[in-house]
């Protein structure tokens, strides 16, 4: 559990976050609208938000390319940050863990971007990135499971972890069989956002509500884990269904 209630620091953090959200909304309004995919399988994060976040990261990406930072170094950094996020979840440092999860997701975007912009994209890099992604996810879920030990939420963590791996596995297997599978509401960026923002917000709420409740409570994080478990399971099932249908169509004479 968190060492103490710190509502003052949490209020200061909330003000900074509110300013950042205000600036983000202004930036989002300036971002050109992208074609929106609609329906039950549309990703949770709209293309406009993705385009805005990529725009925020572009100057950083350019500096990393200019500084000749190798994409593998960013992949390694993402793995390390994910392990730290797992440790932070395990220790009950939920605000920090949520923020580290968001940072890991950002590094995941940056490594691919730097590889493409710097002309260093390769099948080896893509393979290493995928392997590191799975290890990173496992480390974060492991910490989350340890935090919720003895609670029913631990089951939701286990389901979310299994379903997240299945989302990636169904896509990889389908691609191996010659199909591109990119449908689903809870793809990797969505999983980072739900878990990262869930933790971040949960940490803030826990410290702000602490003087009233008397102890830190992480209902928001539990809700985020349940949402992640449901969305990831739905995405894995939809991908499996789509792949099975496409394979049946292909084998039909």
């Amino acid at each position: 559990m968190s060492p103490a209630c710190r509502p003052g620091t949490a209020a200061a953090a909330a003000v900074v976050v509110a300013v950042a959200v205000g600036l983000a909304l202004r930036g989002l309004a300036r971002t050109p609208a992208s074609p929106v995919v609609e329906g039950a399988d549309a990703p949770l994060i709209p293309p406009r938000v993705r385009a805005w976040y990529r725009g925020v990261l572009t100057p950083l990406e350019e500096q990393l390319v200019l500084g000749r930072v190798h994409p593998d170094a960013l992949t390694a950094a993402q793995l390390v940050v994910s392990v730290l996020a797992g440790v932070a979840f395990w220790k009950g440092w939920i605000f920090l863990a949520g923020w580290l999860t968001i940072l890991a997701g950002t590094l995941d975007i940056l490594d691919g971007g730097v590889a493409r912009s710097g002309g260093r994209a390769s099948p080896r890099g893509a393979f290493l990135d995928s392997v590191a992604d799975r290890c990173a996810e496992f480390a974060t879920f492991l910490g989350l499971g340890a935090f919720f030990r003895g609670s029913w939420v631990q089951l939701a963590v286990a389901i979310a972890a299994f379903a997240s791996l299945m989302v990636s596995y169904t896509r990889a297997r389908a691609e191996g069989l010659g199909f591109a599978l990119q449908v689903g509401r809870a793809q990797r960026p969505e999983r980072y956002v739900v878990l990262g923002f869930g933790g971040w917000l949960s940490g803030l709420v826990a410290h702000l509500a602490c003087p009233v409740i008397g102890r830190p409570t992480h209902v928001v994080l539990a809700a985020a884990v349940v949402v992640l478990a449901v969305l990831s399971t739905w995405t894995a099932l939809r991908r499996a269904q789509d792949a099975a249908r496409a394979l049946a169509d292909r084998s039909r004479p």
Partner: protein
Amino acid sequence: MNHDAAHARGGVWRPVGFLLLMLGFGLRLDTPWQALGGLLIFAGGLMAGAGLWLLVRRRSMGDAFARATGGE
């Protein structure tokens, strides 16, 4: 000062400053490392503030340029 370079610096300082700010708040809220958290909040605040200042300056200069050439 080269304005493109200043813009690039601002574009890097804003997200990195915000990253440091949030790490600092995280350390202050959740861990016993209060001094390190305070240091990161200070450094992050300076960086994000400088990045925002460069953004505001660039926008105001951009507007002035747009007016001088008749806009779009």
